[in-house]
C-alpha cells in the first residue's frame, strides 16, 4: 500500500509530521512558562491571560487563521516587521502552518502541563529550599521531574491537534502541495476532485496509523516517566 502512495501524498505526510513536530517543540518552552504562571502566580489580569490562552480552543479555527493572516501576513504589522528585520515570511509557508498549529494546540498543552504543576506538592519545593537549593535548582530537580508525566501528555495533545489542524492552516497558509499541503488539506483536495475518494481513504488510513502511533508512544513514555518519578 505504501508503494501506492504518490509523490504528493508522501509530501503531505512528511509535511504534516514536520509541522506537527516543530509546532509541538517550539511551543513547549512558552507552554511550560505560561502553565507555571497560571498554576502558581496570582496577579491582576490572570483571568485575561487565561482567556487569551484558551481563545483558540473556543474560536472557529477559520477566525484564528484569518487573524494570523491579518497579523502575520506580508502586509500585517508583525509579518511586515518580521520580513523587513529578519527576512522571515510565514504566510503561505510551512513555517506559517507550524505557527498556526502551535497556536491551535497551545491551550491543550498549557492545560495538561498546568494540571500537572498544580498536582505537585509545593511543600516538597519548600523542603528543597531548606536543603540549600536555590529557586532554579528547585525547579530543575523537583518541579520539572514531578511534572514530567503531564508534560508528555501536553506534548501529545499539541502534536495530535497539529496533525488534525485544518481551518486555521488553510486560511493562513493555503493548500500548496509541497509547501503547505498537510494530510487534512490533501484529503480535502482529493475529495473535491471527482474519483479522488480512494486517494482520500488511503491518506485517512495513514493519518489513523500516525495518530495511533503517537498515542502509544506517549503512553509508553508517560508510564516510564511515572515509574521513574514515583517508584514502583
Amino acid at each position, binding site marked *: 500500500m505504501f508503494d501506492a502512495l504518490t509523490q504528493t501524498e508522501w509530501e503531505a505526510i512528511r509535511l504534516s509530521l514536520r509541522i506537527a513536530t516543530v509546532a509541538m517543540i517550539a511551543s513547549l518552552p512558552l507552554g511550560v512558562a505560561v502553565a507555571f504562571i497560571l498554576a502558581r502566580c496570582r496577579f491582576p489580569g490572570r483571568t485575561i491571560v487565561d482567556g487569551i490562552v484558551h481563545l483558540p480552543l473556543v474560536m472557529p479555527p477559520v477566525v484564528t487563521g484569518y487573524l494570523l493572516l491579518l497579523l502575520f501576513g506580508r502586509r500585517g504589522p508583525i509579518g511586515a516587521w518580521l520580513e523587513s528585520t529578519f527576512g522571515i515570511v510565514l504566510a503561505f509557508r510551512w513555517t506559517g502552518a507550524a505557527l498556526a498549529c502551535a497556536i491551535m494546540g497551545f491551550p491543550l498543552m498549557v492545560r495538561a502541563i498546568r494540571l500537572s504543576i498544580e498536582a505537585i*506538592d509545593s511543600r516538597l519545593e519548600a523542603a528543597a529550599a*531548606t*536543603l*540549600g537549593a536555590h529557586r532554579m535548582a528547585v525547579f530543575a*530537580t523537583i518541579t520539572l521531574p514531578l511534572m514530567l508525566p503531564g508534560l508528555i501528555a501536553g506534548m501529545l495533545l499539541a502534536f495530535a491537534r497539529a496533525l488534525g489542524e485544518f481551518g486555521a492552516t488553510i486560511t493562513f497558509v493555503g493548500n500548496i502541495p509541497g509547501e503547505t499541503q498537510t494530510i487534512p488539506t490533501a484529503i480535502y483536495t482529493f475529495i473535491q476532485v471527482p474519483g479522488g475518494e480512494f486517494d482520500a481513504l488511503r491518506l485517512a488510513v495513514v493519518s489513523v496509523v500516525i495518530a495511533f502511533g503517537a498515542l502509544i508512544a506517549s503512553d509508553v513514555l508517560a508510564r516510564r516517566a511515572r515509574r*521513574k518519578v514515583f*517508584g514502583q
Partner: protein
Amino acid sequence: MSLSVHVEKRLGPAGGSFTLSAKFESEGRVTSLFGRSGAGKSTLVNLIAGLFRPDSGAIRIDDTTLFDSTASIDVPAHKRRIGYVFQEGRLFPHFSVRGNLLYGHRFTRKQDRWTKLDEIVDLLGIAALLDRRPASLSGGEKQRVAIGRALLSSPRLLLMDEPLAALDQERKGEILPYIERLRDQMRMPIVYVSHAVDEVSRLADTVVLLDAGKVIAKGTVNDVLGSRSEMIAEGPEAGVVLIATVRVHDQVSGLTHLAHPAGDLSVPLSSLAIGSKVRVRVRARDVALAVGEPGRISIRNRLAGTVSDITDMTRGGVAVRLDIEGDPLIASVTRDAVRDLDLKVGDPVTALIKSAAFDPLSFGNTTWP
C-alpha cells in the same frame, strides 16, 4: 550555638485574626517550642527557616543575622543553612533514599560540610534502605531518612516540626533514641516543636511555651512543666523531669530499677544501658503523699522529701511542691487530703508513685545536665 528570635507576624484570613508575637533566646542544645495545636509553633519555625517572612523583628544565630526588618536583612531559606525535619517527612518521591540523603549535601559548599553519608547512615540505622524508594518505606523509616537528609546538608541548627506526630506510640519510641543521639553524640543544636509532653520532657533543655501566638513561659523543662501558670499547673501534664541512673534490669518482674538520691524508682522494663543517665517524667497527678511510714501498700516507689510550697488551684485541687534531695517534685492532691495530713511547708513527707504510672515513652537516655 545561640539562637535569638524576636518576631511579629500577623496570620489568618483577612490579616489580623491572630498575631504571632514571640521573643526568646536559646543557648540550649535542644529548645522545645511547646504548646497546643494552633499556638503558632509551626509558624515560628517556618519564620526561622525562612519559609515565611516576619512582619517585623529579628532572627539571629550566633553572630549571623538571618532576618532584621530594621536593617532590611532577609537571608533566603536556601542560604540559611538550617536543616528542617517536617512532620510529614516530605521525602522526594522521584529520588531513592540515597538520592534524598545526598540532596542537600550537594548544595553545601565543601568547606561547610561536617557530616558524612556513612556516619549519618550508621547513626540512624538506615543502611538497608539506601536503594529503596520513599513510597516503599514505613512511617518511622521515612522520618529517619528525613532526619538524615537534613543532617547531611550540614546545618548549624536543626528544626524539627512535630516529627513524631504522624507516628504511633511504638514508632515514636523507636525514633526518640535517635533524636537523643543527635543531641548527646552529635551535639546538634535543635529547635523541637511539639505538643506532646513526653517528647519535650525527654528531649528539651530549654522549653518555650506558646499559647495563642504569645510566649507564656520559658526556661528549663522543670521551670515550664512545673510552672505555676494556670495553663500548665491546672492541666493533666503538670509535673517534673528527674534525672536518675539505671541500676539494674529485673526481667522476671518486668521492671527496670533507677537510682535517685531520694530513693529508687521502678519503671517498666527498658533496654537502657546500666549505669547510664535517664530522664524520667513524673506527672503531678501520679504522685501521692504520705506522712510518716506509709505501711502496707502496693506502691513501690517511695521518695523522701520535704514540702516546699502548697498552692491551691482554681479547680479545687492543691499542688504540693516538694524538695527531694535538691530536685523538685510536684504532687497534685485534694484539699481534704492536705487538711487531714495537716501539711505545712517544711514538713517531711514520702512521695509515692506507682510503677505502672510511668509509660515507656516517658523516660530515655540523657547526658544532660
